[in-house]
């Protein structure tokens, strides 16, 4: 068995970094380049400073990435002007899959023809020197949003560009995004990312890591998402990361959102402290509905407003916002800026001084907490010489099972559905080690729903598409 440990920090990292940085697109960057650059970056570009400055209201962060430098520069300006507290840099999918040559070719074509042939900003192709120019004069943190199983070079370029928040993780950026990239390799590659974030940090201005809790955003039971978030916080802490955000996606049930936030916040803290990582600062991020959006803009706006109220009720440190064009594709910069403005409006008029709770929320939270502890305790008991090996084994055994993951290492045995209040219930746990009592309560709560469809798959379809 292998619990998280301070001794797990990657050794021999200097030589390893030189290998990664020998790539031509690293443009001769030295391992000290990022650390040097951050000396000239204003403190407000670090998430810990932005979070410390927020006053009761969650910070806002849109999503957005265009292939051309000028378009990204304009988007950055527009989002900042609209009041976004965090500025996104969303990376294109070729770069996410390490196909830098294709990304570079399509960037060239986009530049020549003035059209977008990439669905995001090809950060590695643009390189760190140009990307620094995107953020000249900016006094807000930039967040790298991607979905990359092997983000070693990408993270090096991001840090050298002055980007102080890196989203992702070996699990959360692999299981929902990849069908075959081996999970054990992803866990090791993300150790590298975590380690270089730690090495680029100073005591007062740490590089910030954030995990992606929505996962497949398709009927993921909160206990599964929370277990993964805590594991990724622990894996990052092992590498010396001291500023970390856990996150989750709107579940579709207000009760379950309130309960999930409570358990995610408290258990992340508890497990970090238990494993000796008391010094890690943790934050809670809420993603507005990540499933299928209604195509009608009025309904989309209503969904976004409702999600903003929940972000306020759970006292999220940050809310990641959607736009009214979510169902239609990548939004224009103006629509994206409008979304930030709308969400800030709702957060202002629906301020919430403390986290809201109720007996129903407490009951849900107790159930989720018990399930998360069962899962994590079972993972800690699995054999392995290092914690990451126990984590890898947990997926092979189906102890952690993410519904609707395309990944070959995911068990796909857990089945979940919604109960009467829309909360996601575990109908069939597969190999996930929840206790018999908890499994019984899950089923009892599911029985509260009277209008269940005759066939499982019809129920699943309507549960998945509940917001449409």
């Amino acid at each position: 068995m292998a619990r998280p440990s301070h001794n797990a920090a990657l050794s021999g990292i200097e030589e390893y970094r030189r290998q990664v940085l020998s790539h031509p697109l690293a443009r001769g960057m030295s391992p000290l380049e990022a650390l040097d650059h951050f000396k000239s970056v204003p403190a407000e570009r670090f998430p810990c400073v932005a979070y410390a400055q927020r006053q009761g209201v969650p910070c806002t962060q849109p999503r957005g990435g265009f292939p051309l430098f000028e378009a990204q520069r304009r988007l950055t300006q527009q989002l900042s002007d609209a009041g976004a507290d965090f500025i996104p840099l969303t990376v294109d999918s070729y770069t996410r899959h390490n196909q830098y040559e294709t990304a570079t070719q399509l960037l060239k074509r986009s530049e020549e023809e003035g059209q977008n042939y990439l669905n995001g900003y090809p950060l590695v192709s643009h390189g760190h020197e140009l990307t620094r120019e995107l953020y000249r004069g900016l006094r807000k943190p930039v967040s790298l949003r991607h979905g990359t199983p092997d983000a070693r070079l990408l993270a090096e370029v991001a840090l050298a560009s002055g980007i102080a928040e890196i989203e992702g993780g070996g699990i959360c950026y692999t299981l929902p995004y990849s069908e075959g990239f081996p999970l054990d390799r992803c866990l090791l590659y993300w150790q590298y990312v975590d380690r270089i974030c730690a090495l680029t940090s100073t005591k007062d201005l740490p590089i910030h890591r954030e995990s992606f809790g929505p996962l497949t955003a398709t009927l993921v039971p909160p206990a599964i998402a929370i277990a993964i978030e805590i594991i990724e916080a622990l894996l990052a802490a092992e590498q010396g990361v001291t500023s970390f955000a856990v996150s989750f996606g709107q579940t579709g049930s207000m009760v379950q959102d309130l309960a999930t936030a409570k358990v995610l916040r408290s258990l992340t803290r508890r497990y970090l402290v238990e494993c000796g990582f008391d010094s890690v600062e943790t934050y809670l991020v809420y993603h507005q509905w990540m499933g299928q959006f209604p195509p009608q803009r009025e309904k989309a706006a209503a969904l976004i407003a409702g999600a903003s109220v929940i972000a306020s009720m759970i006292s999220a440190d940050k809310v990641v916002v959607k736009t009214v064009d979510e169902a239609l594709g990548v939004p224009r910069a103006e629509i994206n800026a409008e979304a930030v403005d709308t969400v800030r409006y709702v957060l202002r008029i629906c301020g919430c001084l403390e986290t809201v709770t109720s007996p129903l929320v407490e009951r849900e939270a107790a159930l989720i907490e018990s399930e998360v502890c069962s899962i994590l305790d079972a993972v800690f008991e699995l054999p392995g010489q290092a914690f990451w090996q126990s984590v890898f084994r947990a997926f092979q055994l189906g102890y952690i099972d993410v519904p609707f993951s395309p990944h070959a290492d995911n068990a796909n045995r857990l089945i979940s559905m919604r109960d009467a209040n829309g909360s996601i219930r575990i109908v069939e746990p597969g190999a996930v080690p929840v206790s018999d009592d908890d499994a019984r309560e899950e089923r009892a709560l599911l029985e509260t729903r009277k209008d269940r469809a005759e066939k499982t798959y019809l129920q699943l379809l309507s549960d998945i598409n509940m917001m449409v």
Partner: protein
Amino acid sequence: MSKARVVIGVIGDDIHVVGNRIMQLALEESGFQVYNLRTRNRPEHFCEAALETNAHAVFVSSLNGEGEYWCSDFRRRFDEAGLTGILLYVGGNVVVGNRPAAEVESLFKQFGFNRVYHHKPDISVAIGDLHEDLRNGATQP
């Protein structure tokens, strides 16, 4: 009586997995034995799986529109493997762009598919058709 065997999967570099998983559950619930190739498959993967499992039917899905590119010689491949009577169904969003449903259906029938469900998300229709085609002896078990 043994269950009828169906090979399902998503074709091309498409990793849209939600419909694929739902389809597996729907077919299993309707009494079929399902062999799920999941995402990112080439035509030969369907053919090899059908041979290996002695399948009655193959369900090909495409959501990102790559279907047209990959499916053009689909039936020929199965004929060459000796799987001449096998039922071939295709569904999802099988072509890129907005094209008339009738045109898309006739295109995929030329490719040798028995049934085409372009932008018809109700899986129960295909399951009903499969029951009917099997009753009519469209394939030799």
